[in-house]
């Protein structure tokens, strides 16, 4: 079997690989089905969207859904660029901050000794298990008390502390050998240098995974726009897409399909970029 920490993509095809492909390709077809479906669905003209029995592939691709979407968007009072800008600001802020905060907290919880460390990690475990839908109303009250309704903070702050992200990163930092840190301390490195020079480079796979998770939870988040904002100008792209497509008209279905494709593309790009950093990073872990 193909176990072995290989870091190089083989340049040539080898016949040993054939059995692997025999497993991978059929599963990949199943796994790829939703993506193919999304892409196909977005290009279906009206009669195919509502065909019964529904069809998986498009037979007469057309751009009519996208055209409808952009026409409706052009007709609204606030330009779509405003929503895109809002989404970009919010997403970027949340991803960067949540990764920063999670790695810092993960480092402290995993490699440092101080009081209250145990209870704090238990708090994270409780937060991990709790159903997020159930805290929406108290969260609204908190945001109201803080006076940040209708600001970017209402989008950003509630999502920054991601328990899943912290748990993931903490678990990975546990795997960083203590001897590396002790060696750095002997060389005179402070906690911050250790964090920057050892922890961050060695946990890149976890950071990439956490970043993808954070991105996903923000980019498709309708809740914050729905609950914590009332002014149109501060709401984000997914909310706008939802309002466009939830009209309930026949056109709405087609526009929803097109919107789904548009929302999906940045996710794909991010993953392709992050994918390379999930791999190959442990190659220079420094301990043999």
């Amino acid at each position: 079997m193909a176990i072995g920490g290989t870091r190089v993509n083989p340049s040539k095809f080898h016949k040993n690989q054939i059995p692997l492909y025999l497993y991978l390709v059929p599963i990949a077809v199943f796994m790829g089905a939703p993506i193919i479906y999304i892409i196909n669905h977005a290009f279906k003209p009206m009669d195919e969207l509502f065909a019964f029995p529904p069809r998986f592939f498009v037979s007469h691709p057309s751009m009519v859904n996208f055209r409808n979407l952009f026409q409706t968007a052009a007709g609204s009072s606030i330009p779509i660029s405003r929503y895109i800008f809002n989404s970009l600001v919010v997403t970027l802020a949340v991803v960067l901050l949540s990764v920063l905060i999670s790695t810092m907290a993960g480092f402290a919880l995993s490699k440092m000794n101080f009081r209250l460390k145990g209870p704090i990690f238990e708090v994270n475990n409780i937060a991990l298990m709790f159903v997020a839908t159930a805290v929406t109303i108290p969260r609204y009250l908190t945001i109201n008390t803080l006076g940040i309704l209708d600001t970017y903070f209402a989008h950003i702050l509630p999502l920054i502390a991601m328990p899943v992200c912290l748990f993931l990163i903490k678990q990975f930092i546990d795997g960083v050998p203590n001897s590396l840190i002790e060696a750095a301390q002997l060389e005179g490195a402070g906690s911050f240098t250790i964090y920057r020079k050892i922890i961050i480079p060695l946990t890149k796979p976890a950071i990439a995974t956490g970043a993808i998770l954070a991105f996903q939870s923000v980019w498709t988040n309708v809740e914050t726009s729905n609950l914590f904002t009332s002014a149109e100008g501060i709401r984000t792209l997914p909310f706008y897409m939802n309002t466009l497509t939830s009209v309930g008209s026949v056109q709405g279905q087609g526009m929803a399909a097109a919107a789904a494709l548009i929302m999906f593309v940045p996710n794909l790009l991010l993953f392709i970029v992050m994918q390379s950093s999930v791999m190959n990073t442990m190659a220079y872990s420094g301990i043999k």
Partner: protein
Amino acid sequence: MGNWLYEKVLPLLEYVPYVLLGCVCAALIAALIYALVRRSQKKPVQRFIRDTLWGYFFIFPWLVGICIFFLSGVADSLLYSFYNLKLDNGLQLIPLTGEDAMGNTVYTPLANYISVFNKELNYPVTLANFAVSLILQLPVIIAFSLIIALMLNGKIRGRGFFRTVFFLPVIIATGPVMNQLTAQGVSSVPMVSQNVITSVLAGMPEFISTPISDLFSQLILILWNSGIQILIFLAGLQKVPTAMYEAAKIDGASGWETFWKITLPTLRSMILLNSIYTVVTLATGSTNPIIDLIYNATYAVTKGYSYAAAMTWMYTVIVAILLLITFLIIREKKEKKSKDIWRRDVESAKRGMQSKKVRKLLERGKAA
């Protein structure tokens, strides 16, 4: 009893997260002052004070976030579950009251919890079904993602492409696209689920056969949900030192042996991480029927938020128990195994020493 609870105990709940935050703040400030005083006296700052300061410094931003935005919500929902919450004009907390046998008004703090069982007749059944399907799905997801991760870690062309394909379903799994796909029947294995499995399952009692047939009808859906797990395993596989594989190869170990003796033990912590992650995502994911129940109850006229909060807390306790079980199973194996090997070695060594032959030899030696 109820009166005392409402007047003294419950209002304190709201302050729990802030007390935690306050404790850490106070400790931080105390440590800081102590360090400054030591420094002004030109004495070296003690090590544990320095550690505390750095530890709190690193954890502080996260702690503030979780306390204010999450923990306060959790504490509030626990508080509200003992009240009747009204949002008419501002927030109103009405203590729950009822009449006892004598016709007197008494406080009944647990009324919401009891009414969950009265109003939601299928709630316990849904919970039990969820627990069973979780137990069935967890090993499938873990095994599948481990196998895929092993394959994707190997020497094949187009690894990047395959990795992307296997991860992509995660990205869209949250959207309404998933519902459309399920409605179209893409998510089940068509022929298999209808013929072979039903005939096998027909002989089994219903409480076993239902979850298993569900498992097969959702098989593709389960596989779609394992993208993150594959990613975590892939990252874990990178940590397995190549030198170990080389050494094993030189010693003549087959791929199968290498997997059981090297790969799996190294990945054990990742398996634990993945299992917990899987349980959490399955329990709090949007496709979970219980989340639907809770969500609907929150905005239903007859039920309301405090009722939904009671439901949530019961659910959280059950999820916690499931998590604990998962944790214990995977943990215990690890310790047991290592202990067993250790004990086996020691005991076999002892036995070797005290076997009859050895004893005789020893005695002869002594005699001579």
